[in-house]
């Protein structure tokens, strides 16, 4: 394998490649986010024997663009009682962490450009997972701030609920993947993909089925998707923490939610399903896995009723947390024996 491309051996090529990778990943994520809203409406429509959007363009395919344009030209309301600075900052504080977590996810194998090895990953941090968990933690600030600064009872309850839910499930999610690091001996996502390479049987979903299930369920709770969408339980809280938001600020919350779905789908694929490994070129494999998980997220929304708050907290603290610890102990014993 030729030398790895770095800032010291060819700075101009390094920066050009870096910018290309960042821009293409960003545009792909924005496109997936836009068309995930379309896919969600279409799939849920079909599951409820409706058609979903059909009027804008062929099969309603221009719907996300029409929605986006509409939101751009809507009135931007800042309630008179709101804390203005925090109210304006909060949507950005949610969107930015959601979009930057894709930076450490490998989306393909290595390629060779002008005699240098270039990994298909924006940044290979040796603490990749910690970076993702830290950014997920930062997103909570945006939610709490949005709920509090709106000065609206529904928003406040939604924001506080979301914070308690996200931090409770972050624990179980964080502990459930410790077993993966024990097997892979690294926190770098590239290293974890390499540790699963070779055969499909090396994928951690087969050696860590409990961790896979725990991480899957707790991540759905962390991104506030049905059946854990209590922060925006529309039957009791109007729209939760984004009740007072309108126009593009509301759209930022929406985009952050779908971007989180993309990141979580990509993260589960990377940690448990071998990342870009598979029969096709790497990029296509990871996209298939991401779309598969996103379909499951949408399917769950069409199928499951919402859990109660006490059930949510019961599961997070009394079921998933002990199970995650148990899984670490079992993995430890198996590795030692």
């Amino acid at each position, binding site marked *: 394998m030729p030398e790895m491309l*770095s800032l010291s051996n060819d700075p101009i090529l390094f920066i050009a490649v870096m910018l290309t990778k960042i821009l293409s990943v960003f545009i792909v994520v924005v496109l997936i986010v836009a068309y995930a809203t379309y896919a969600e409406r279409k799939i849920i429509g079909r599951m409820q024997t409706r058609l979903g959007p059909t009027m804008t363009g062929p099969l309603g395919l221009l719907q996300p663009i029409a929605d986006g344009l509409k939101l751009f030209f809507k009135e931007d309301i800042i309630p008179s009682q709101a804390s203005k600075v925090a109210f304006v900052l909060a949507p*950005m504080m949610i969107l930015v962490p959601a979009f930057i977590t894709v930076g450490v996810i490998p989306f393909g194998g290595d390629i060779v450009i002008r005699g240098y090895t270039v990994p298909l990953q924006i940044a*290979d941090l040796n603490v990749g997972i910690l970076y993702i968990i830290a950014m997920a933690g930062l997103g909570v600030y945006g939610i709490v701030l949005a709920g509090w600064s709106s000065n609206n009872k529904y928003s406040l309850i939604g924001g506080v609920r979301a914070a308690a839910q996200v931090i409770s499930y972050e624990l179980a999610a964080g502990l459930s993947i410790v077993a993966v690091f024990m097997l892979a001996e690294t*926190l770098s996502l590239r290293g974890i993909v390499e540790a699963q390479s070779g055969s499909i049987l090396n994928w951690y979903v087969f050696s860590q089925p409990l961790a896979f299930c725990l991480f899957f369920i707790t991540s759905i709770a962390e991104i506030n998707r049905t059946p854990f969408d209590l922060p925006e339980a529309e039957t009791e809280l109007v729209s939760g923490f984004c009740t007072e938001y309108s126009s593009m600020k509301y759209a930022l919350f929406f985009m952050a939610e779908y971007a989180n779905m993309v990141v979580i789908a990509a993260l589960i694929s990377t940690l448990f399903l071998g990342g870009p490994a598979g029969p096709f070129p790497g990029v296509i494999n990871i996209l298939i896995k991401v779309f598969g998980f996103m379909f499951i997220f949408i399917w769950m929304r069409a199928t499951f009723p919402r859990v109660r708050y006490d059930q949510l907290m019961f599961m997070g603290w009394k079921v998933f947390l002990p199970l995650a610890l148990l899984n670490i102990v079992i993995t430890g014993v198996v590795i030692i024996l």
Partner: protein
Amino acid sequence: MLESYLPILVLIALALMFALGSVAFSFVFGPRKPSAAKLAPYECGMPLIGTAREQFSIKFYMVAMLFILFDIECAFLYPWAVVFKRLGVFGFIEMGVFIFVLLVGYAYVWKKGALEWE
């Protein structure tokens, strides 16, 4: 090693620009016809009752405090997990003692009812 963070910085700048740009765009091009009723907090159209800046359940603070305790445990487990195969039985027993101490606290919190919601 620090240069591997350069792409992350560029990505953060791009995401910030995207967020700021879209908010600024709608701020500039959106209509603006404020009225007292439109700017009031939404409460299903009923007259406002009190303020939103009130006390809420202490349970939420408890969860936040417990989270900090257990998240530190989580942060300790990560580096341990990475070198686990090299530490072997010694590392397993040592972490077992650490987790046992935490489990005593966990059992206490459970018994005291801090994890109950009704």
